[in-house]
């Protein structure tokens, strides 16, 4: 009958109207600055540098290998290697970046820098409230601004961070085990060398007369 669809539509919208007051399924608005939708785990926005421990500059994982700078498609990363070296998480001395700038207004969040980094030093952040009144340098982030701790990384990407941590711990354990095995072997060799019967000093025997 003509008009039936209209009446059904009116009933449906009426239900929506009254339901929006008490039914959360019918009022899905999240009032942004006061309420926020929690970010999903795979969300990504712009990169940041991970540091272990408490001191951002000392614990920075980045070794300034410049692979991410070369691989970045819009070339938004600028790295200057520092002459001084610093120890990494296993204690080995590595290079460090003196200058590490990412121009976030150029970055396209493609995550290639994360994929190519061999040192798990650069990861994707989810922070997006980056608006700035400085049109010219406000979105250029230097290494102090980019450095965020591993705890923060664990908070925003728990699964990835757990996997990275496990891998790094395994590497560390392997290196330590190897170092221990080396040390043990060395000590054993030394001990063997010390405990072995001294090679008989050539006794000055009379030549048999």
């Amino acid at each position, binding site marked *: *009958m*003509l*008009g039936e*669809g*209209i009446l059904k*539509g*009116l009933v*449906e*919208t*009426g239900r*929506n*109207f009254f339901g*929006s*007051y008490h039914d959360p399924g*019918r*009022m*899905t*608005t999240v*009032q942004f600055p006061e309420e926020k939708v929690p970010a999903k785990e795979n969300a990504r926005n712009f990169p940041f540098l991970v540091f272990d421990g408490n001191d951002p500059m000392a614990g920075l994982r980045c070794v300034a290998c410049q692979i991410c700078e070369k691989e970045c498609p819009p070339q938004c990363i600028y790295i200057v290697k520092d002459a001084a070296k610093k120890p990494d998480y296993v204690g080995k001395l590595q290079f460090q970046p003196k200058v590490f700038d990412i121009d976030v207004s150029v970055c396209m969040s493609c995550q290639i820098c994360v994929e190519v980094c061999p040192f798990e030093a650069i990861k994707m952040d989810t922070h997006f409230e980056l608006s700035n009144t400085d049109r010219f340098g406000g979105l250029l982030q230097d290494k102090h601004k980019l450095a965020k701790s591993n705890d923060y990384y664990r908070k925003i990407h728990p699964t990835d961070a757990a996997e990275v941590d496990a891998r790094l711990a395994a590497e560390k354990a392997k290196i330590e085990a190897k170092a221990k095995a080396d040390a043990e072997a060395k000590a054993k060799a030394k001990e063997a060398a010390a405990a072995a019967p001294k090679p008989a000093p050539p006794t000055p025997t009379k030549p048999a007369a």
Partner: protein
Amino acid sequence: MIIALLKGLFLMIWKVLGDQPDPKADFLAALPEALRVLASVVLSVVPIMVTFPLLFAITTLLERKGLGRIQNRLGPNRVGPCGIFQPIADGLKMITKEDIVPRNADQLVHFLAPIALVIPTFLAYAVLPFGRHLVPINLDAGILFFFAVGASTELSVFMAGWSSRNKYSLLGAMRAIAQMISYEIPLIISTVTVIMLAGSLSLVDIVAKQTGFVGGILPHWNVFTPWGFAGFVMFLIASLAESNRSPFDLPEAESEIIAGHLTEYSGFKYALFFLAEYLGMFAVSGLAVTLFLGGWSAPLPYLDWMPTYVWFMAKLMAIVCLFIWIRGTLPRLRVDQLLNFAWKFMLPMSLLNLVVAAIWHFTSVWSFPGELAARWLLCAAMIAIPYVWLGRALSGDKKSTLRIYRFAD
């Protein structure tokens, strides 16, 4: 003399609020003879010019919040608590926007078009009875006056569209005028049924005929008769089309023709067009209330203590809320669907309604027990059966079925 004036003013306000006759008499008596006519006119006009734009502001907010809730979202809620200062923000924006007039446009006509729209729309309120003693002018040919000034608004739509020297404006204006002319006929014919049975063109008389209660409980409103109900529905549909509201807002929809005849208007002139559209909506709602819903009379006899203008305004706002609800529900009609609906469906049904109203009138002399039910059945059948048949005939073979998408799931 100042004291007499203040006393007259106070008595006037007291009488208006208390629904008593002849409120202006004391105030006017305190004025010198020469000023009385002018003062009387000003006192009648100023409340209307204050109330209805205020109501317009409230309705824009109500509409945005209401549509928001219907669409599963909150409306504007930042400007004041629950967004109640949003209309002030909108008004400030409209006033301070730059007024751009195209260089090729016809300057005089472009300037006059919003004025030529707002003036007849305000004039239409002069005959609506807002309360038992609150009608600005009791014209003998009240309804004729109302439709006359309503028809004058169409010329201003044309002026707006043509003076912009913009082919989209002109196209939009042509469509708008075609729509307004087409829907004027069912509008006026549904009114004629009421006039026929009330025996007068004066709105005060029409409302007076709808006071009183049938059987002590049911009000004697026109909407509670079969022809009145059908007439009310058709009047509402036609008035939606006359004021260019959804689902008939093709002339001014942004996705259709930018803004149709309003394209080249910005700032305050656009605000005037907007104001005129809403004022027109209130005016036809007021007329619908007067003709079909019993005007200022209360629905039940023991609710008589509430002042009559409160009832009028409540019924007006109920119709406005119904319009907002319809806007949130229905998709827009295409121009050929619009015009087909007006000429092929509304016009025959309104003519039929006229005949049914006449039959209702002539069968009122029946006096056997159960005559009310018999008359109701006869008249309702005479309307419902052609409605169903015409609906089926006009929709043809098109049935709305569930859509099947070939490649999407």
